């Protein structure tokens, strides 16, 4: 793990829900800071687990994690999509009319508060900004569970598709192709907009139109940011770490995601099976047998049976079939990993492998 930290400037932690991505991201951050790196652990999980794990203020944007005394420094960042989106527009819009046009649009107002859609973009924008800010040697990104992580990883191409293909042209009233193709396009657009008006109402289509007209003014910047993000994610200095567990369904989900990462050209550097087994249930360890014997000798049959059942369960789980090679297996902690002290202990374990 030390090598992984040493050789990369961005580490993206991905995996299924409930496997401990946030905790491991934070522990990797602690390890990196101990190694002398100035590190930011950034989360795009709207559940804000990172704040709970590190015991920091949930409302903060980028904070120095209190209580640390490392050779480097550990910072944590949560993405406030409304604030980042608004700052991005202010920074990139060339005139006040564009800013007002967007801020006053009903769709934008909902987009920055209740609706999804801007989260992937704001996350990409934040990642690009922090990775290139010069403030940090390493940015560790904690992603949402696989299904939403896929959305995030495809966000750059999705954004490019929006501004390069039919949709923006349709709402902006631009034609595509020449002569017959152009006439066919116009007819198709008319029909689709008619259907959309019928389905959604003309007011909604007008709001949509207003939104795209306003955002079109900063479209080149959005394209530029998404291209930068795409390049950064594909860069060999960006490592992907896949975190999974010994549950068969999660391993299958992880394998499919692994294939997807490979096909997209991302660099998957490590697969971690988190909470593989507790320290007292390491398969084939002499302690398993010794614990059994001692409990039975003391007449604690119910506890001995429980221990036996659990050890069998963990041993069976560890036999789960997987295509992954060189898996890093982390034993489960006896206590919960919350707070800097517990994260330091987990970082110790990561440092040993």
């Amino acid at each position, binding site marked *: 793990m030390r090598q992984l930290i040493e050789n990369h400037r961005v580490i993206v932690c991905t995996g299924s829900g409930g496997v401990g991505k946030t905790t491991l991201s934070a522990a990797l951050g602690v390890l990196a800071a101990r190694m002398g790196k100035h590190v930011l652990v950034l989360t795009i999980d*709207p559940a804000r687990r990172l704040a*709970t794990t590190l015991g920091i203020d949930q409302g903060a944007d980028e904070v120095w994690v209190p209580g640390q005394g490392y050779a480097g420094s550990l910072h944590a960042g949560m993405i406030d999509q409304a604030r980042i989106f608004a700052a991005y527009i202010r920074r990139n819009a060339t005139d006040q009319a564009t800013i007002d046009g967007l801020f006053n649009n009903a769709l934008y107002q909902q987009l920055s508060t*209740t609706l*999804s859609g801007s989260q992937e973009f704001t996350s990409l924008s934040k990642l690009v900004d922090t990775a290139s800010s010069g403030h940090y040697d390493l940015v560790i990104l904690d992603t949402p569970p696989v299904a939403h992580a896929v959305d995030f990883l495809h966000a750059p191409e999705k954004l490019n598709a929006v501004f390069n293909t*039919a949709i923006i042209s349709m709402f902006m009233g631009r034609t595509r192709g020449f002569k017959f193709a152009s006439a066919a396009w116009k007819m198709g657009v008319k029909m689709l907009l008619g259907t959309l008006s*019928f389905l959604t109402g003309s007011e*909604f289509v007008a709001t949509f139109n207003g939104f795209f007209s306003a955002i079109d003014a900063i479209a080149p910047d959005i394209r530029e940011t998404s291209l930068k993000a795409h390049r950064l994610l594909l860069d060999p200095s960006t490592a992907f770490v896949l975190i999974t567990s010994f549950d068969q369904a999660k391993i299958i989900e992880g394998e499919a995601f692994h294939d997807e990462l490979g096909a997209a050209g991302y660099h998957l550097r490590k697969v971690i099976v988190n909470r593989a087994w507790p*320290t007292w249930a390491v398969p084939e360890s002499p302690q398993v047998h010794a614990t059994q014997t001692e409990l039975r000798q003391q007449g604690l049959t119910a506890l001995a049976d429980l221990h036996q059942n659990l050890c069998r369960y963990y041993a069976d789980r560890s036999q789960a079939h997987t295509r992954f090679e060189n898996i890093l297996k982390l034993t489960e902690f006896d206590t919960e990993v919350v707070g800097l002290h517990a994260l330091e202990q987990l970082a110790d374990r990561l440092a040993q492998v």
Partner: protein
Amino acid sequence: MLLVEFGKRSFFGPFLGLEVGNDTVQWRPRIGVACWDVEEALREYISHYLVFKSAATKILSNTVMKALVGAAPGLGEIAILGKLTAPRLHAWYKRDVDVVVVDAYATGQFMTLLRAPRGLAGTAAGGPLHRQTVAMTKLLSDPKLCEYRMVTLAEEMPVAEACEMFVDIQTETGLQPRLYCNRMLDLPPLAKPQSFASAGPFLEQMQSLATRQKLSLKRLSQTGAKAVHTLPMVPMLNVVTLLERLADALELAEVAQDAAP
């Protein structure tokens, strides 16, 4: 009943040994499973209203549809919730099931999903989309039609999130979710770890687990939930046994819920 998950990739497919996709597949008699995808849901809906189906197929080509879903804020959520609520909102939409059980997204993403109809309704004062999103919001808040069940673990972070989400769901829908604490280990009387040479670490963890389980249930009950139900940890890999054991526990929970003051 129909068991539904959202997204392109199915969890239940590999879990139950089925090929699960947009169309329902039977797992057991009277139990169907499906995985609903946003683009397919949207295509199904728009196609119904388009007069020229072949032109619709062209216009709704994959690239355009992907871009539309990517571009339009909240559209993905509305497409999925629209499909879920369609039999109640449109006479033309038929779904021959008594109950739909949705395996929804995790905390943050679920709240985004749940808030989407209200969010979109706020973008226009009238029109079909406004009417439909308002109707969706009502359906999702109707205790006769819809209920929410939250499942958490006896661990600090999941419990904290569950408590927060319990409030969020109530605020958004006015409905109180049922609370379940999953993977609760049924512990026999414990012995003091200090008196054991080899069994100490095991006993220590069991003690810490007992404390954590107790504290978690206490924190969950402080939400004001009518009852907090426990689901057992089933330390075996056989899917059918696992599901049957959980179904037994759920049945007991139903009785407890009804008996709760």
